């Protein structure tokens, strides 16, 4: 194997992996706080990709600028989904036993509704966004680096760091962590738990708003694009350690690099299957994930 091709594959895998990690952040945060596996995570990314696509195709808005609209729109959507759809379920369960399965079924329902609504509204066509300017590849150490993906990966690291910092230092961040650690004790300390849940869900979706905008510049957009990213996010979150923010980025990079390198030797499909095998293997040795505390 040629060293140049290998380093190219690793570089690409790092970038793609960072983006996987960034996309998975919201899933990890929502699980960490609400203990709800959001099966519709990929569908929210799909919606966000369409937001940037339509803003570009109707109004000619630059996809990077569309993040300014995309992020608050996705935040509000996430907030509303939690407050109006998921919250009543959690409220009902709080008196009895918490059943993660019913929350999973509910979010699976949201996934079906969103994906099918997108198919009806937008049709099955694959769309693409073109920036009005040309974004040349950068040469880093003799290796060509796709600048759109580089922006995405750098954004993932920045968002992960900013999110951890905010959760550690801000008043609302501390309330979110308290709620994640002990919901009843948080409520008995005066924290408005349903509000914290809705904000958390909103932030999880707001991050997707950013990545939808960034990824619209290089991802073919279709109504079914969400599921594969949703499943990948799930793998990344479990691999990195449930609820761990740095684990999310690391898990993403492990999957991204593995896929990129493996696809140099076998077909992309086999590489994807191989990454599932890697996933199982790592969990055998570290059941709580790479950064997870057992």
């Amino acid at each position, binding site marked *: 194997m040629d060293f140049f091709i290998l380093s190219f594959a690793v570089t690409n895998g790092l970038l793609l992996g960072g983006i996987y990690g960034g996309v998975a952040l919201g899933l990890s945060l929502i699980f960490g706080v609400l203990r709800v596996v959001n099966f519709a995570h990929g569908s929210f990314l799909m919606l966000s990709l369409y937001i940037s696509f339509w803003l570009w195709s109707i109004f000619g808005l630059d996809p990077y600028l569309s993040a300014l609209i995309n992020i608050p729109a996705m935040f509000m959507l996430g907030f509303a989904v939690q407050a109006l759809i998921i919250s009543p379920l959690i409220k009902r369960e*709080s*008196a009895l036993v918490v059943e993660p399965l019913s929350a999973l079924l509910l979010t699976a329902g949201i996934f079906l509704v969103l994906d099918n609504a997108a198919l009806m509204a937008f049709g099955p066509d694959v769309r693409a966004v073109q920036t009005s300017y040309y974004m040349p590849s950068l040469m880093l150490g003799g290796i060509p680096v796709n600048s759109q993906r580089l922006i995405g990966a750098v954004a993932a690291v920045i968002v992960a760091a900013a999110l951890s910092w905010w959760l550690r230092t801000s008043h609302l961040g501390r309330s979110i962590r*308290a709620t994640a*650690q002990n919901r009843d004790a948080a409520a008995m300390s*005066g*924290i408005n738990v349903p509000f914290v849940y809705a904000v958390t869900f909103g932030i999880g979706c707001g991050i997707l708003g950013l990545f939808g905008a960034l990824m619209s510049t290089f991802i073919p957009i279709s109504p079914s694009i969400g599921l594969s990213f949703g499943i990948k996010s799930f793998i990344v979150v479990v691999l990195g350690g449930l609820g761990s923010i740095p684990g999310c980025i690391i898990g993403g990079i492990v999957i991204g690099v593995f896929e990129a390198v493996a696809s140099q030797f076998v077909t992309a499909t086999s590489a994807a299957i191989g990454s599932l095998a890697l996933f199982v293997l790592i969990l055998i040795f570290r059941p709580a994930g790479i950064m997870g505390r057992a």
Partner: protein
Amino acid sequence: MSSPALEIKDLHAGYGDAKILRGVTLSLPPRSLVALVGANGAGKTTLLRTISGLLKKSGGAIALGGETIDGLPPHRVVEAGFVQSPEGKQLFHGMSILENLMVGAHTERARARRKETLEEVFELFPILAERQHKPASALSGGQQQMVAVGRALMALPRVLALDEPSLGLAPIMVDRLFEAISKIRERDLAILVIEQNVFQVLEMADYGYVLENGKVSMQGSGQELLANDHLRETYLGL
């Protein structure tokens, strides 16, 4: 005459079909210390969870300082002035002592005074000041209980409820805790203490209630209850 700090009338609550509280009536005068005793499973914790709004009542009325708190969500109950240090401490184990205390000062009223209140809590439990940056999980049981009580105080309660604060503590720690409770009494609040240490709590209480099968079976001043034969037999083994 001023209205009671906490007044509960004919309260009914439970879990699904299991009726636990069947008409509890009790009252805390302002600045009083009231003891609530009763066997395991009598419904004491259930009563506090119902007042806190974590559990829906099926009947009755709850008022704080003469104002109803019926149907308020838990965070509004804290705003209204009822704060409990829950059974089993329920600390935020991933956080430092200081952070645990800061979470307690969540309401606007409490946040505005949190520096002063923190100093008061540290004065009450000096060991917490010393170890404020240690994770809550690194503390002994007694120190964790201090954090739990301190966190409740940080919310500036008008009514403070302590659910078995001495549970699982070494005798010397139990004594220190009761000392702290008598100091907390000097503050402008009413205190409801649930205890297994029936003798110790009734000794210091202005008034006491005995809960049996979800109902108040006996009540009276601490001394009256301590002199009661049924209570001495059942709870003091005398």
